């Protein structure tokens, strides 16, 4: 590994730093907007009317709190730890992304911005943003890689129906990374009129903090619900990690509970060579991509590597900076599950529980299937089921050959 010297001395006390990670690495043009966003976000936290409006939308519009469901048949099938599923898949629009989109949408409105832009990988953040814009009467442009548009076509159609303009991105790998770059180019150009709703716990400060704060309701509810049902905290919380918004939301309130293992699951893709996966902690080194200092999959010249995952939402070369800090401190563990394991987990959850998980979330289910049998029936696992799999029917039909074969175990 090449010697990494930070451009500035890291300090825990500096805003926007998680250990040595995070920070702000952006063109100067965006600095005024990031400073304004940071200030307005802090004001909104202290604004009781704003918080009441957000909480009412989360409850009555999005469907919070989401259930914590005991997956009895999956538990019996695996013969180990009790498995609970946090049902973010039951939220309006089908994934946890709506938590953040509603929060930032209200923030944009509070700041008087009428034009919204966003990036999307699997399309769940794009749908959540388009939904929020329809609800709040805001103009909406979504950037999406052309590869992702093809494999998540249903979500493209949903966004258009909701009134958003979906702009295909044909540069680079034509996936999430390129959609973020194109959204940032739009923001640099239209920064005076436009709010960028970043959908993952990524990017320049204050985005990783804002997104985490809007997603931490997941772990707050998990904690209350498991204490109510079991009278104790779980042994482990498992979540898939692309940029890392559902995982940081699922981990955050447990960070101080040292006995609760926090397990993030990256995309193992179809192999261990650079370009064949999106396992940043297995193959990446610290670097700067799209505004933040974190682990980055890159070649020996600092060029960002291509990535692969069957799930568009995990197919990204970097990871949220707070995860990088949790990784280095050892507080959270990160592992990977490959495409085949995720597809297998989709089928297993569908057949045992009648629940069709998103391919992203299926990586977390696959990890639960690996670790649960090694645990005892007294142990408790919570899996964050971050999204539902309806959007993946095209890929699933193809990969599982649903059109040609009678699928039975």
């Amino acid at each position, binding site marked *: 590994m090449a010697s990494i010297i930070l451009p500035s001395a890291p300090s825990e006390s500096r805003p926007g730093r998680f250990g040595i990670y995070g920070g*702000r690495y952006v063109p*100067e043009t965006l*600095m*005024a907007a990031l400073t304004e966003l940071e200030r307005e976000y802090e004001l909104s936290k202290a604004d009781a009317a704003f918080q009441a409006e957000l909480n009412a939308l989360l409850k009555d519009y999005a469907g919070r709190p989401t259930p914590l469901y005991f997956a009895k048949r999956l538990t019996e099938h695996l013969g180990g730890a009790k498995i609970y599923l946090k049902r973010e898949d039951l939220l309006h629009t089908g994934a946890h992304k709506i938590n953040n989109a509603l929060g930032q949408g209200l923030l944009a409105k509070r700041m008087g911005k009428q034009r919204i832009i966003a990036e999307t990988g699997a399309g769940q953040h794009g749908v959540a943003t388009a939904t929020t814009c329809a609800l709040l009467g805001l103009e909406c442009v979504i950037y999406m890689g052309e590869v992702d548009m093809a494999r998540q076509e249903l979500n493209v159609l949903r966004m258009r129906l909701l009134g958003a303009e979906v702009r295909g991105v044909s540069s680079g790998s034509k996936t999430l990374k390129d959609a973020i*770059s194109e959204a940032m180019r739009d923001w640099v*150009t239209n920064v*005076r009129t436009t709010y960028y709703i970043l959908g993952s716990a990524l990017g320049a400060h204050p985005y990783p903090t804002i997104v985490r704060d809007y997603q931490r309701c997941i772990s707050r509810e998990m904690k209350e619900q498991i204490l109510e049902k079991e009278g104790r905290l779980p042994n482990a919380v498992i979540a898939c990690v692309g940029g890392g918004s559902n995982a940081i939301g699922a981990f955050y309130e447990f960070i101080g509970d040292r006995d609760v293992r926090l397990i993030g699951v990256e995309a193992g893709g179809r192999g261990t060579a650079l370009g064949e996966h999106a396992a940043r902690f297995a193959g990446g080194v610290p*670097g700067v991509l799209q505004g933040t200092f974190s682990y980055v999959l890159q070649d020996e010249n*600092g060029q*960002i590597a291509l990535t692969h995952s069957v799930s568009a939402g995990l197919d990204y070369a970097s990871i949220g900076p707070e995860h990088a800090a949790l990784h280095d401190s050892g507080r959270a563990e990160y592992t990977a599950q490959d495409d085949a394991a995720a597809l297998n987990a989709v089928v297993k959850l569908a057949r045992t529980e009648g629940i069709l998980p998103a391919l992203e979330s299926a990586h977390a289910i696959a990890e639960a299937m690996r670790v649960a049998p090694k645990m005892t029936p007294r142990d408790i696992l919570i899996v964050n089921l971050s999204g539902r799999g309806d959007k993946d029917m095209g890929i699933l039909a193809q990969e599982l050959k649903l059109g040609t074969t009678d699928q039975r175990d």
Partner: protein
Amino acid sequence: MPLSFHHKPGLVVYLTAGDPSLEATTAIAIAAIDAGADVIELGVPFSDPLADGPVIQRASERAVARGTKLSDVLAVARAIRSARPEAGLVVFTYLNPILRYGLTRFADDAKAGGADGVLVTDLIVEEAGDYLREMDRVGLAPVFLAAPTSPDERLEAIAAHCKGFIYAISRTGITGKQSAMTADAAALVARIRRWSTLPVAVGFGISNAQHVAQVAEIADGAVIGSAIVELIERATPETAAEDVARFIKGLQLLAVSS
């Protein structure tokens, strides 16, 4: 002091190194200097150039695909420096290639390669502590961008840390040609002057003699990027240097006669 402007306005020419080849970049840079360029900005191609428009994105993609490395770009700098000792030379890059190369090693090698300054597109002054120390240690000029959206307190900090010249972005946006200069540029340059006596170069969107003449009225230098990169994209490798030289001479016509 090689980072100085001998023309009114001084001409800063941006080239994506390695497009169409390292040898061609060296030849084009030399031709550009001979045609009147005061400073060459040698662009390090990066896989994810989020501050750049389609023209420089395409050039970067081609150069990365050819395997152009940071060390190759520094070798081009050395070749230009030995051929034209009097010209200004700035390495223009995104941060990640420097981090991977090693900041200390980069500072040493850029200095040894004959660069006068460095501009890192995605590095703002607040995050630049170690970088500024390294630039200072080896005697390279750190050039920062100033934007129309930068408030006065940021311009003050930028002015305090810049050496050589200050790069004023003509408009909010990414690199690329535009039809007319905006009022943003003049207002920004006037604000920068309150904080600095350094020369100010205006860039982003400057693509013809009329733009250059307009810049001459408000600033010390004009940066020409996408227009030249696009010219190189359209030219054959054999004629690119000649085409660029003719274009640069044409840019100065209105400014000289006014």
